[in-house]
């Protein structure tokens, strides 16, 4: 694997919260993509952490666009670059609300049309920018400002929806595993067509854990099996090392839930729901990897 470059494309003057894993994700995404890249960003935390006009903390062009519009905007950009023979990378960088909820129509359209771009969803499992309201991506049992008693429904299976479009490349990642994230972005950008990377993005104020624990939270998500690192290249699934290990010997779910205020007082039913979703996902991916389904 190539070394992670020293160049920085997200500079040291962001207005991100302390311990924000979104900015960490962005850092490795952009190092992998390099300078000939345009980021398309719908309304999300990243619209804010760039800083305030006329300044920006971003060292590549960033096109900020309306909430539901990112994938469609990127379709236009990708087509325009094709029209003039430019090879510039077009990357949508969107939160979970802008992806699984309001942006899913544009996402589906862009993937169905075979748009040449990379869509990255950084998922902090709620509407973070507006102060943590539930999204379709919020897991069962999590308290948000609009689910004060804990969410009664399970997390929307975004990856299954994206997989239904048969993209040439899709993967999950987490900035707690930076080399894995870096190489997945590089691999995605080496392939033509619509690519997708779903990144778990632990959020200290939203998940209510101490801000120095973001990297640890990402690792606990993977080790407990709540977040599975895998790739699907031209339909072939590979479960990545850390998740392979977690499937053999997971850390108890409680170790992941306990530090998070959002799961405080979670009901046994919601806890069972979380466990069953994680197990179902693991079983499905294992079968896919073995080529059974």
């Amino acid at each position, binding site marked *: 694997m190539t070394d992670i470059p020293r160049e920085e494309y997200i500079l040291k003057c962001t207005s991100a919260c302390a311990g924000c894993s979104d900015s960490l994700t962005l850092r490795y995404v952009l190092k992998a993509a390099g300078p000939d890249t345009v980021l398309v960003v719908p309304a999300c935390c990243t619209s804010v952490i760039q800083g305030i006009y006329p300044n920006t903390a971003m060292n590549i062009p960033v096109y900020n666009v309306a909430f539901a519009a990112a994938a469609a905007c990127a379709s236009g950009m990708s*087509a325009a670059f094709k029209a003039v023979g430019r090879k510039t990378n077009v990357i949508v960088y969107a939160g979970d609300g802008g992806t699984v909820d309001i942006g899913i129509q544009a996402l589906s359209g862009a993937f169905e049309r075979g748009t040449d771009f990379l869509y990255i969803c950084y998922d902090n499992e709620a509407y973070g920018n507006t102060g943590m309201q539930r999204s379709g991506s919020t897991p069962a049992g999590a308290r948000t400002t609009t689910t004060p008693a804990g969410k009664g429904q399970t997390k929307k299976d975004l990856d299954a929806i994206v997989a239904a479009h048969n993209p040439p490349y899709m993967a999950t990642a987490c900035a707690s595993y930076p080399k894995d994230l870096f190489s997945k972005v590089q691999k995605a950008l080496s392939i033509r067509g619509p690519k997708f990377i779903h990144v778990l993005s632990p959020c200290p104020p939203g998940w209510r854990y101490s801000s120095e624990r973001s990297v640890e939270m990402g690792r606990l998500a993977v080790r407990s099996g709540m977040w599975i690192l895998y790739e699907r290249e031209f339909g072939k699934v590979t479960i990545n090392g850390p998740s392979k290990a977690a499937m053999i010997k997971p850390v108890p779910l409680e170790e992941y839930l306990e530090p998070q205020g959002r799961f405080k007082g979670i009901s046994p039913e919601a806890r069972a729901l979380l466990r069953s979703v994680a197990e179902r996902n693991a079983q499905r991916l294992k079968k896919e990897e073995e080529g059974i389904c």
Partner: protein
Amino acid sequence: MLTVATGNKAVAAAVKQACPSVVAAYPITPQTEIVEQIAEYVTSGELKSQYIPVESEHSAMAACIGASVTGVRTFTATSSHGLHYMHEMVNWAAGARLPIVMANVNRALGPGWNIWAEHTDAFQERDTGWLQVYVASVQEAYDATLMAFRIAEHESVLLPVMVNLDGFLLSHSMQPLETVEIGDFIPPIRLPHAIDTAHPMGYGTLTGPDQYFKLRWDIERSMRDSAGVIRQTEDEFAKRFGRRYDAVEKYQCDDAEVVVVAMGTLGKEAEVAVDLLRNEGVPAGSMRIRWLRPFPRLDLSGRDVVVIDRDYSFGFGGVIARSLAATERAKPFSVIAGLGGQEVTYDDIAGFVRSRRPGEEYWFGVMPDV
């Protein structure tokens, strides 16, 4: 070349000649033929564009925005509900200073479902920062579309332009069409703020109260400057191709004591009504407003005014009648007619003039005959 075409085909023919790099569009009655024809041109190789068959109008405008900001020419077309579904991005396109050209085939809004002509769809977008022109013939649909690219992309404008044509009355009517060899009438596009990865910039970044209003003022400044660019472009068009247009098309107005003001095809119908009235000895004239934005001056002083609005602002009135009351201090007889494709003949228009009641509002077909 002289041919016969529908309004939709005329728009598509002009787009082919303007040769946008990217066309993103979603079909909607009665605009459909425009996007079908463009798809045909692209498939046959007559038009070298990237054609994006998007999944919605919101995405159509979003795709045009993404394409346009890279510095290439873009086009889309829509109508009615489609225009309103993309409303958020219609604002975005103007705020982002992107010279996108869009044809809007004017159609009423539901419910109930109605596919026929009305101007309310585009009028509701009048405050978005788009220039808007309304045409009255197939020929004018073609000519205005060609001019729209040159006006939008002019360095003093850099705002999107909407070309409006009445649903079915123009979109599906066959009329003679003379196409031209455009030569260098539309210069190559040059967007000063195009994305350049060698010189990275933030676009649409969070903008505080200390800066935002300056950007709004900048839009208004360009909107004001656009009136001159429009005049210049229409002069140049007349010089090269022999057809002259003005912001307001005046007919028999010099000695007119009563003037009918209308837009789109009703503005043309009013000219026939004027002939009829003049035969009866009524000194009538008509003014067809072509540009809704920037809104023109009309010089109505000292005459009776009959305004026909094919639109309505509920709780306020006919948009053109109320606008002229504000900008011209006119006290018009405000006729609301033609909503949802309601038939309005030159006889009807002559009737409005004969029995005008300045200062009053009259809903044609609803209120007792005047």
